[in-house]
């Protein structure tokens, strides 16, 4: 089965894709931190951050339309969380609507809060999207490990990535087998079957875990995974790492 969800565009050839994962992690996290730290009124800085990210996306030869669509994934969450906020805060009327049975007023500070949430979420998601689109998952994990992330997290993430594809394959096979044998059927009965499938998947994963452990022992595993080595720190990385201090400078002097 060929599927590559997490790192969809990470195979493209571009200067950004070739950068070491560590540099990218640091820079994109800085984008998020700076964006989150801004007061909602810093339109100029929000604009600059957005333009910088778009610039990096263009350098990385990523399809902007595709990325924009992915950023819109946050909309449902925003809608649920933030859409009621403008109607809650009761100071500084920003506008008013009169419905048949009463008035609906939108407060100004509520609108500011909504804007705050929307712009920061969008910039944050965009940054992470750029990170995951320019770095393959294995590289990302190794980068995090070399930056000092606890091994337990990276090992878990690494195994999860590797075996999630196998789980998906097994699930598809089970679904095909199920569909071939129970055509139609009420949803309640189907949920029982799904429960069995989940249970079976768990058992199979458990046994697979045992076999993988034996395979690791057979290749000399003695309790700790070997250290990741390598990684590049060249001109590209240095140039890219100028971005965080530049952003910090702009943050301090433009607001």
């Amino acid at each position, binding site marked *: *089965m*060929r599927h*590559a969800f997490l790192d969809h565009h990470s195979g493209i050839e571009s200067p950004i894709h070739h950068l070491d994962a560590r540099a990218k992690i640091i820079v994109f996290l800085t984008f998020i931190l700076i964006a989150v730290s801004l007061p909602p009124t810093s339109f100029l800085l929000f604009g600059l951050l957005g333009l910088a990210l778009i610039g990096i996306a263009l350098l990385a030869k990523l399809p902007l339309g595709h990325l924009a669509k992915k950023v819109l994934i946050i909309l449902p969450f925003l809608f649920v969380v933030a859409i009621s906020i403008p109607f809650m805060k009761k100071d500084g009327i920003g506008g008013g609507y009169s419905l048949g049975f009463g008035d609906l007023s939108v407060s100004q500070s509520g609108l500011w809060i909504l804007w705050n949430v929307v712009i920061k979420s969008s910039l944050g998601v965009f940054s992470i999207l750029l990170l995951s689109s320019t770095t*393959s*998952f*294995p590289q990302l*994990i190794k980068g995090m490990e070399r930056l000092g992330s606890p091994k337990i997290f990276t090992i878990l993430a*690494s*195994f999860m*990535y*590797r*075996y999630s*594809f*196998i789980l998906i394959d097994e699930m598809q096979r089970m679904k095909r087998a199920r569909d071939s044998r129970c055509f139609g059927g009420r949803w309640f009965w189907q949920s029982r079957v799904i429960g069995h499938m989940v249970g079976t998947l768990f058992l199979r994963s458990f046994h*697979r875990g045992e*076999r*993988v452990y*034996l*395979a*690791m*022992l*057979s*290749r*000399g*595993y*003695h309790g700790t995974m*070997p*250290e990741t*080595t*390598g990684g590049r720190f060249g001109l590209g990385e240095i140039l890219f790492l100028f971005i965080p201090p530049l952003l910090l400078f702009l943050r301090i002097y433009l607001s």
Partner: protein
Amino acid sequence: MNSEKVIEINHLSYDYPDGTPALRDIDLVVYRNESIAILGPNGAGKSTLLYHLNGTLKGDGRVTILGLLMEKKNLKEIRRRVGLVFQNPEDQLFCPTVFDDVSFGPLNMGLNEERVRDRVERALEMMGLKGFDGRSAHHLSEGEKKRVALATVLAMDSEILALDEPTDNLDPAVSRALIERIQFIPQTKVIVTHRLPVAVDLCERAVLLRGGRKVEDLPTEGLLKNRELLEQFGFDADFAQWMYDRRRYLTKTHF
């Protein structure tokens, strides 16, 4: 044939944890650079016997590998020198990239980065997988997965290779290609298979198991001429005769 005994098994018996008897009183001697096939029906105990070679399973009886008795203090050294390739490559390839998987063994052995890289390159080249370093295991075909699994063990420079059904699940062309590659590996090989052609092409000696007991231990050529034994084990005696004749013909013309 050199007279150095690399594997010596005396009176090995093993029961599964649930009590099912798996092996009964097995005696086996393997000399250096020999290739032996372990043949038998499903459930005969072939894989079980194989797993005793690197201490994955421990039964009653004596197992001596390369002069080292199979006990806890020798396990690390034995596992360094016996390369076991499982039947299902998914259990053996647990790292995000091919390079990680093949380098896992050498890294655990404590080799430095440069030597590890060297070993990985050589192992991949031997298996015809040059350039596969960055590929992810789930994007490979069955044949490629089997080759990577074999490469993970070759990178450890093991003195003894133990292969569990190496051509299982492979189509004829890929199976043939894999057999040809294995033929070039000079080390001692113990190959579990239930297919006679694999045994004939790769091994000069065949050990037949049934019901956990060793039934026969003879040269492969002798097996091809033994109609009674072949039929007992469900092999096609006429096909075996044809293979025997072809071998005689090939060795005559290739002198």
